């Protein structure tokens, strides 16, 4: 098969469909639904009288997601190239919509909008928006990317979007993901290393400074840094800031090597609130043990690897960058989620892709897979 012929016959294109990636995604989504049922059924039975309450809602979103994936995978990816301005401005507008009466406040955070037929999180749109914008703008800039003007065009809009997410929707984790995707795509696009190493060092120094400040300010009773102090010593903050983290650690620790068995988690019985959401990985550890945890992480590694292979077999830079952005999105989110659940970094709300409960999230994640599949049709992976 000739991967260079992007305008080849459809019959041939189908042949190049990346089935490994699709299998991994199907497996992750199926496993996700199983674990959503396992984690939510007890509490759902009590609160809603229907133990499959969350499962049904998520299954609906997943079905919609598969339609989206299938639909998007049929759209030649070059189509998205024209959408750079729409992607970034549209994302910004959606974020601003939460300030209108369409915004919905849940658990004290203004993160959802009601579009009449569906409620959704603009943050999820912003992630895909940034991926399309960056891929398109980097490709268009070409050699002028490394000029100050070029860098500004590449970095300012995502930074602005990230600031909006952080300040308007109080969603720091999504802001970090949006910024992280942009930086990752820029990293791939330019041949430089030093700048990124320097940026990394600066980031580490900043983190150390903040942690140092948090510890030093403990004596003054400084409240803002509570979250960081809770991270350093969760058992001393077990009743407030570190409650969720500590409950997750209990779940992970009590799983042991073999786990308690599917459905046997105790922590999901009201101890770890909304365990089907961000902390679902800890219940996977409790029920399926270390081997379950290894299997889940392994699946994500395969997913990322598949993305890398597809990206590197794509001759077209735009297609490659789209896949790189999506890979960065998955990777950052998985890494941050597992790091939070294991108390490796301070607690911030990030869901585990394909597995955590969340309709908008699974819809857009599957749509992104659709893009990757479409790119993969035009390469020769085998």
């Amino acid at each position, binding site marked *: 098969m000739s991967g260079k012929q992007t305008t080849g016959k459809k019959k041939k294109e189908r042949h190049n469909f990346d089935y490994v990636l699709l299998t991994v995604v199907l497996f992750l989504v199926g496993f996700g639904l199983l674990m959503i049922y396992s984690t939510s059924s*007890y509490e759902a039975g009590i609160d809603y009288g229907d133990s499959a309450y969350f499962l049904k809602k998520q299954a609906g979103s997943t079905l919609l997601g598969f339609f989206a994936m299938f639909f998007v995978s049929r759209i030649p990816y070059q189509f998205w190239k024209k959408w750079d301005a729409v992607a970034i401005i549209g994302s910004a507008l959606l974020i601003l919509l939460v300030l209108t009466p369409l915004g919905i406040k849940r658990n004290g955070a203004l993160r959802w909008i009601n579009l009449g037929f569906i409620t959704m999180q603009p943050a999820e749109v912003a992630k895909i928006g940034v991926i399309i914008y960056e891929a398109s703008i980097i*490709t268009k800039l*070409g050699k002028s990317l490394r000029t100050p003007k070029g860098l500004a065009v590449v970095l300012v809009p995502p930074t602005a979007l990230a600031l909006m997410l952080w300040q308007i929707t109080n969603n720091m984790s999504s802001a970090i993901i949006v910024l992280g995707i942009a930086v*990752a795509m820029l*990293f*791939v*696009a330019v*041949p430089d290393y030093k700048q990124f190493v320097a940026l990394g060092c600066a980031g580490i120094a900043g983190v150390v400074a903040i942690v140092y400040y948090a510890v030093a300010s403990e004596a003054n009773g400084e409240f803002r840094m509570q979250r960081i102090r809770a991270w350093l010593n969760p058992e001393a903050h077990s009743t407030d800031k570190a409650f969720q983290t500590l409950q997750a*650690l*209990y*779940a*992970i*620790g*009590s*799983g*042991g*090597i073999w786990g308690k068995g599917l459905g*046997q988690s*105790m*922590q999901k*019985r*009201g*101890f770890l609130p909304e365990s089907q959401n961000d902390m679902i990985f800890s219940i996977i*550890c409790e029920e399926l*043990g*270390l081997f379950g*945890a*290894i299997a889940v*992480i392994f699946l*994500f*590694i395969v997913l*990322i*690897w598949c*993305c*890398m292979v597809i*990206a*590197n077999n*794509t*001759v*077209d*830079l*735009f*297609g*490659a960058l789209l896949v*790189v952005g999506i*890979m*960065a999105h998955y*990777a950052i989110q*998985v*890494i941050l989620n*597992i*790091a939070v659940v*294991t108390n*490796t970094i301070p607690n911030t709300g990030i869901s585990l892709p394909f597995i955590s409960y969340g309709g908008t999230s699974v819809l857009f994640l599957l749509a992104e897979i659709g893009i990757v599949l479409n790119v993969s049709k035009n390469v020769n992976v085998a």
Partner: protein
Amino acid sequence: MARNKTTQKKKTFVMCMLCIMVLIGLLGRVSYLMLFCSEHYTELADELHERERDIKAARGRIIDSTGTVLADNRTVCTISVIHSQIENPEEVIEVLSSELGLSEEYVRKRVEKYSARERIKSNVDKETGDVIRNLDLAGVKVDEDYKRYYPYGDLASKVLGFTGGDNQGIIGLEVKYEEYLTGEKGQILTLTDAKGIEQEGMGEKRQEPIAGNDLYVSIDVNIQKYATQLARQAYETKQAAGVSIIVMNVKNGEILAMADVPEFNLNEPFTLIPELEEAKASCTTQEDEQNLLNQMWRNGCINDTYEPGSIFKIITAAASLEAGTVTLEDGFSCPGYTIVDDRRIRCHKAGGHGQQTFVEATMNSCNPAFVSLGLRLGAERYYSYFEQFGMKKKTGIDLPGEAATIMHKLDNIGEVELATISFGQSFQITPVRLMATVAGIINGGNVITPHFGVKVMNEEQNIIQEFEYPVMEGIVSEDTSEKMRYILEQVVENGGGKNGYVEGFRVGGKTATSQTLPRGTGRYISSFLGFAPANDPQVMAIAIIDTPQGQYYGGQIAAPIVRQLFENILPYLNEIGYNVTVSQQK
């Protein structure tokens, strides 16, 4: 079309590998948590999830020498409700209030209270509990539990004792043998969710309780019943303040019966007996009422001391024989009184007993004769015999609260004191103390320890412990012992104790009539101590009547009680292996 350059592919690969390395690092972190912190977090998590519930252990039974159970356990139920599981609160309230005889208001308050588990009533009859369980009401829990049960009600109440709310012994053998009778509590560890709802089928851990061991006692339920019946009869006909009867094995100190009327109902130990109901009305404080209960539970045979009176002449006689200050043929003359230190001490026979031998003086229970015996010994010698016979020590009986002897200090014993001690006045001992020493004098010189506990056996009928009790040996010579048996048989055959004579058996004994303190109130304690057979004593009984109305001489009212007792129990004792009919012919 911009091409995907090699440098860009390389960087994509670098980025991918970076992500994979971070993920592998996180996998290391997860492994560390799940392998090395597992124990720590599992412990903390279990603490969070587990609820402990105690399972009561069945308390060991108390079983008499015939194998009859005197203290048993009965299954009772505790009814409780679990708020979150109740489906029909109105029905639950209605059923529970009517079945348990509780006010609707009381039950409603508990049913509607938001708590994990609320107790409605404990100690409910098993039948009632079964009725409620069979209704199968959602949210209503019926737990079975043990409660102490005494099949004979008030029989040997002050000896057996009873248990409190936690099944712990409060008085009597129940408290003395607590360590054997009480079992080990079991535990149910259940898992609950965050709201405290038990998770069924989620690995319930159960630690079975270990039942307590059975205590086998020397009491014979037949003798105990008969002794109690006789005591109650005397208590009623004599309108006495109290009547005590003790039956003891002379050889080894095993107590076959100990009755102290009025007894109380062991199944209702906090309900006052009718005699004390009246006094309750005048109680103003909780403490007063508690004092009444303590009074009701008091065992006069061991908790209280009294002046033994003439029965104590056995001790004076034995000491004199042992010291050689008297022979059986020594003559005494009684003019009806004796003068000691210009104090005139009267004999109970106003006209005097005239000329008599030592044996006759004992038969007559002549005070002047015994005063002169005491004086012959002298205070110091008398005191050393008093101690030698163990009279100053507690007997060590296996019941709590044994009272100590109240005796003069040797320095304070003048002639008058010595004279009164000689015939059993001016000091106080418990009835069991008196019995133990007299047993030692007539059984060849071995003061045994009166006791109930024989052995402890577990559920599988294996002996856990057999009890042994100390014996003070050689308090008198065999010769003295034999002489005392002869004298005391004469007392019953021909002397003041002839009402204690039992046709067909050889019985020895001594009567006593002691004035209570303060003197001059006309209140007496009448008693008789008898044993059989006189030549080789096996069994001994004492009957003590506190403050009888009308006749009050021990020989007239206490001796017949022991006679009736012996008439019934001696043939029975023969049947169960006591050899009480040896050589009927003298």
